[in-house]
């Protein structure tokens, strides 16, 4: 059974690239344009993993992570922060919120797939 990964990013080009990379690797993908859109779409999907940007309108990545972790069904799914923020305090905030790991932009598709392999069975 194919794994369903949600990608939340307000950049359409990043969503396009992440989506393409994941689909090429055999994953199914659902896209969200920001944190609130991600929360709304969770109701209609059973995701196995979340990849989220941190800086997004309406609901940012840190808040999104907190709300996903509070959801009983998603207490233990892997969540990866996809961000240009390389400051340690942002990574620390994300980890505190419940993120599993992070990738710093810019990244190569193979790096993204390498991280997914590390955290998703």
């Amino acid at each position: 059974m194919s794994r369903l990964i949600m990608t939340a990013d307000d950049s359409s080009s990043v969503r396009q690239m992440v989506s393409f990379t994941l689909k090429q690797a055999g994953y199914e993908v659902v896209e969200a344009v920001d944190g609130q859109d991600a929360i709304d779409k969770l109701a209609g999907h059973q995701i196995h993993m979340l990849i989220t940007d941190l800086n997004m309108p309406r609901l940012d990545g840190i808040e999104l992570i907190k709300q996903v972790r509070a959801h009983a069904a998603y207490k233990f799914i892997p969540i990866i922060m996809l961000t240009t923020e390389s400051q340690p305090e942002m990574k620390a905030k994300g980890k505190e919120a419940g993120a599993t790991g992070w990738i710093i932009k810019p990244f190569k598709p193979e790096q993204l797939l390498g991280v997914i392999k590390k955290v998703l069975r």
Partner: protein
Amino acid sequence: MSEENKFSDGYRQEAQELLVQVEESILDIEENPEDLEAINRLFRAMHTIKGSGAMFGFDDIAAFTHHVESAMDKVREGLVPITEALINLVLSSRDHIKRMLESPDGIEPEEKKNGEVIIAALRELIPDDLPAQEKEPEFFASPQPEEPKSKQLNTSYRIRFKPSEDVFSTGMDPALLLDELAGLGDCRISVLTDHLPVLEGFDPERFYLAWDIILTSTCGLNAIKDVFIFVEDDSEISISVIQEHAITEREEPLPKLGDILVDRGDISREAIDQALGHQKKIGEVLLGEGAISKEKINSALKEQQSLRSVQQNSVSSSVRVPSDRLDKLINLVGELVITQASLTQVSADIDHADLAGPVEDIQRLTGELRDNVLNIRMMPIGATFTKFRRLVRDLSSELGKEINLNTSGAETEMDKTILERLDDPLVHLIRNSIDHGIETAEVREKNGNLLPELFSFPPPTLAPMS
């Protein structure tokens, strides 16, 4: 259209839309400098133009936009006020980015200069901003410099990995990290259940296991550390080199079970000595005394088996050749080289087209033969290091002195004869250093000294004796 072009076109389109947003936002801010929503909108637009630009190869745009993003970051933090100068600069930046987007072959030098003027003006307004090119993009993989692959010996590592009890709540499955380690080389894993609570206290959402892993690989230490990058802050992880496996004629003595357990810190030397006094197998004695768990014994035995297996493979993949036969071969090759040189000279004098080709081939083949034969005698010095480790360890115990032995450059090759002749002098040096050059632990503590580093050996490759 290739996927790369599709992504680039997608970025251009998105960036153009975002620049419209930038213009609208800055004009809103001009009307109302307290409009936090507009400030955040403007910041996010710049952030996305920069981040996505770097993703899709628009490095110049990313580097330039970084300055405007930084400025807006400070505005939204309340560190920099909105001024007319800043508004004008943001609008100029927006126009400059647009020109860059519309010039796929690069902007004119005059335009580039204009960009530099804008950056300089932004820096004047926000003095502690760093230029974009000084910040290198951070990639997830390999935060440390990778060790050159050609120099990596097959090395056995001992890894002890104890994830935090709430590792599941981070979404991490530690078993996946074991799979990743197994992909790096030969991996033998022992689970440790010392911290498993009784059933009544067992919480299925918490994690109670630990693992001892013996990994033999050429991947290098950094690749192993990268496996744990997401859990290193919250887990107990120790990685140590057990042995570097050079190709060697000699079978190196395997560490004994008791030595392995002491090295790991699982038991004291005194307990081992006491157990040995019973003349049973050390593992049985320790188990009988309840001094250690069966799992730790089995884990240490696995380490011993792993090293034995690697050693057997190393030794069996080499062939023993008497030294005098090698010497004879080298002499014959030496004479061949001289004769080939004469032949080349004669061919040049005769200058016959049919002769020149074969003579050139002989010259090339002779050169290769000479290089290969001389390399046969080259041995990695790492084989000697193992003996030194054992020597230091035994002397350390015998004299009651705590000593760290650090070696590097095990892959450095030397002629076998030089290596053999260096053996005794180096042993002599080490003995003398330990006997006379290093104080006991009590004296060192009194003097406030740390454990001494005894031996550091990173020599360059030495040429063989001809």
